[in-house]
């Protein structure tokens, strides 16, 4: 397991996401109210690009005719068959015991902590593609 730098914090405002490639895997990094979560971009059902799906709410019913809505923006719906997952954990919403998407640990670190000779970090695509880590910014890390 290694931590990969995948984005600046500023690049993923609350309520948005970024798709990144880390160690050969497509991963969706989501910002929910300032917290970051990372999920494998593949639905375990039939393989759709899960992290391109819509974010919605959890709707539950304590009994017929009664509805409750919460967790706004925290439930991810697969773009194909609508299977729903909890962005925070990768657990499916409809069958929490049976279906799960791989969720990765995330962290935020200031650039000053990431520039060499910081240890235990692998440069992610963000660094490789374009520009070096700047010490003035905060970065999102994903552990894969």
């Amino acid at each position, binding site marked *: 397991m290694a931590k990969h730098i995948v984005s600046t914090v500023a690049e993923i405002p609350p309520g948005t996401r970024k798709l990144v490639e880390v160690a050969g895997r497509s991963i969706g990094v989501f910002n929910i109210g300032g917290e970051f979560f990372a999920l494998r971009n593949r639905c375990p*059902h*039939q*393989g*759709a690009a899960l992290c*391109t799906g819509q974010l919605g709410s959890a709707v539950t019913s304590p009994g017929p005719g009664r509805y409750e809505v919460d967790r706004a923006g925290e439930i991810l*719906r697969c*773009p*194909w*068959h*609508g299977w729903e997952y909890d962005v925070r954990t990768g657990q499916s919403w409809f069958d929490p015991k049976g279906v799960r998407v791989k969720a990765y640990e995330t962290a935020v670190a200031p650039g000053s902590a990431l520039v060499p000779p910081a240890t235990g970090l692998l440069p992610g695509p963000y660094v490789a593609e374009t520009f070096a880590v700047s010490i003035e910014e905060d970065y999102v890390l994903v552990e894969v």
Partner: protein
Amino acid sequence: MVDCDIHNHLTEDAVSKYLPKKWRDYDRQFGRRMTPGDFYPKATPMASRTDAWPPGGGPPGSDLAFLRKQLLDAWPIEVGILNTLISVRNQFRDYDAALATAANACQVAEWLAPEPRLRASLLVPYEDAALAVAEIRRHAGDRRFVQVLIPSRTSEPLGQRKYWPIFAAAAESGLPIGIHFGGWSGGHPISGAGWPTYYLEYHTGMIQTFQAHLISLVCEGVFEEFPGLKIVFIEGGLAWIAPLLWRLDRSWRQLKAENPNLRRAPSEYVRGHFWLTTQPIEEPPEPSQFAGMISGLGMDDRLLFSTDYPHWDFDNPDSALSSFPGPSLRQKVRRDNARALYRLD
């Protein structure tokens, strides 16, 4: 691989270009009377995968270049069969006939001519057999149309004699009748017990329409009258068929005197005249139950792979085909059965 159920979307503007002036004016002034099949709000806009909207605009399935990219080139699809779902069931039969003719011309010019991998189902105004037969005759010999399309929610069970001229013309032209999920009945509910509430009930309950047609086609003696007729159930499911045939055969043995037209067991007519597409593939909790279902069905040579692209209940070929036990059956489902049925050579 052959994909036996692809939905290209013909927009109203696209079809309108191919209408004669009289009907184009009618189309503009009065419009189409209803949007059949849409009485239940679908799971997603246009009942489509949310990633299937073409980047250049237009509804899912309306852009050939994007359909190529997202489907035909994404898997090794040699032939894809288009089942366009525009309604030719507006109650005004002459208008329905004009729409069917225009839509078929549109398919030839904008889909079949530019993309040789594609074939299409022929739209016909199926509630008026004489007009439907005229449309079948108009395209006789054009091998790019591989079957005649009828949606599963018809006004009457399809074994009724009002539909027989369509069967006669199709059999004469060597075209199967493809019966596809959807359509508008003209009033009666999708369930045998009235109108359900949810799309979930509609989507699952659609198999009741296929059951009604299967029983009707067999019991009315359609296959005695048209021994060359082939029926394809598209998006009708597989798992319910074997138990229904067990029940039908048992009742037939007891009730033969009521219907002496039937000279063979109902299951023999079904296994001799029916083909079945796979999507949406049933997903039993125990995979071995799927293999048991296929074995009970006994129609290995009649199963046709389909994706239903771009609809929300699309089956991915990689995962759906792996449900079928054994490489030999998978090859039949994936390719060989469709090539034989539709004479794709």
